[in-house]
């Protein structure tokens, strides 16, 4: 309970603090991150850093001094400063200086000699990451495009749905027609068969009658031939044959 009192009393106490003490404390009345954050897209990070000379001094400094002191101005300033620091022993040369010289020269040599290769290696790592993400993106784009193509194709296919029903209806109509024609043909064949049967029967009867009559007549004739007539007819035949043979011999 006492802590709650303290907490409630704190803002009021803070406001009553003298200006000298309040400089380091947080004023509760002020609020950070109160307004909407800026959602505008940031400009892209530049490829190259700002130009520098000697690795640490920006180019803008030289440009700043150029109007007043010309090209050599900043160099003069630098040389003068260094000589001043050394001569007045504001910078004391001791063992640390040797260490610094050795370390710095090694570092600078290393960076200058192998810097680009390390940069290329890091760039390659980054490139691989980018490439994987880019493949994902491209594959997604391709997949979406093929999906759209497929959908359009399927819609086109659906348009042809009437074909199958037309084919079925055609089949049905053709089957009915076939059935009808077969029935006509069957009737015709049956009637024709019966009529032809009648004709065939007639012919058969006729022929049977003829055969029977002929055989009957023959048998009767053979019966009627008496032995007397038989001998006479044979004698006559022989005479005829003799005459014929004479005639044949004569012609030959």
């Amino acid at each position, binding site marked *: 309970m006492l802590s709650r009192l303290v907490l409630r009393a704190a803002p009021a106490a803070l406001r009553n603090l003298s200006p000298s003490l309040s400089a380091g404390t947080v004023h509760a009345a002020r609020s950070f991150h109160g307004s909407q954050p800026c959602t505008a897209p940031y400009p892209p990070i530049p490829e190259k850093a700002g130009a520098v000379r000697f690795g640490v001094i920006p180019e803008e400094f030289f440009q700043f001094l150029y109007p007043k002191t010309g090209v050599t101005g900043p160099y003069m300033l630098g040389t003068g400063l260094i000589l001043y620091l050394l001569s007045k022993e504001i910078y004391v040369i001791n063992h640390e200086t040797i260490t610094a010289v050795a370390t710095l020269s090694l570092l600078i040599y290393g960076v200058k000699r192998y810097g680009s290769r390390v940069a290329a290696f890091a760039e390659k790592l980054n490139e691989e990451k980018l490439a994987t993400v880019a493949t994902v993106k491209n594959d997604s784009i391709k997949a979406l495009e093929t999906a759209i193509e497929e959908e359009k194709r399927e*819609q086109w296919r659906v348009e042809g749905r009437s074909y199958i029903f037309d084919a079925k209806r055609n089949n049905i109509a053709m089957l009915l027609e076939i059935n009808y024609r077969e029935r006509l043909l069957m009737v015709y064949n049956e009637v024709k068969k019966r009529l032809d049967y009648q004709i065939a029967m007639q012919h058969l009867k006729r022929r049977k009658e003829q055969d029977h009559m002929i055989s009957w007549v023959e048998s009767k004739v053979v019966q009627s031939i008496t032995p007397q007539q038989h001998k006479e007819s044979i004698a006559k035949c022989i005479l005829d044959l003799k005459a014929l043979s004479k005639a044949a011999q004569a012609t030959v």
Partner: protein
Amino acid sequence: MAGRRAALKAIDWMAFAERVPLDQRIMFNALKTTSDAISSRLTSLPEKPPAIDWAYYKKTIALSGLVDEFEKKFSALKIPVPVDSETAKIDAQEKAVEKDAIAYVEASKARVVEYEKELTRFRNMIPFELMSYDDLNEAFPETKLDKEKYPYWPHKPIADL
């Protein structure tokens, strides 16, 4: 005689075949063979049977009255046209399919709209070289690291690295 059947609709089998998807090809082939068999049977049958030569039969058959009787009965005979009971069913089928087809096309169009939206989103993305991790998480929400569930780096289970 000619008006008793509906005229057959000419079917373009080539165009039909184009629209058949691969997995239904077998059924299409079966339908085509059946249709071809039926149409060949139809063409093999004559439209009308040949006329019976009554005069010749009258002359030849001795049994009088038989031929006359046959002729009379034959001309009086009416062969019934087969009744069409299946076309109505086919029409009903067609109507049902129509409804499904329209629904499918609507769904397909909706899908196409979604795909188009995704496609424009992908096409209008800023190039990866200019993205920050925040931009990446916006574009591909699955890359967002769950800092509540895994508060310590690398913010995902070690197995997923």
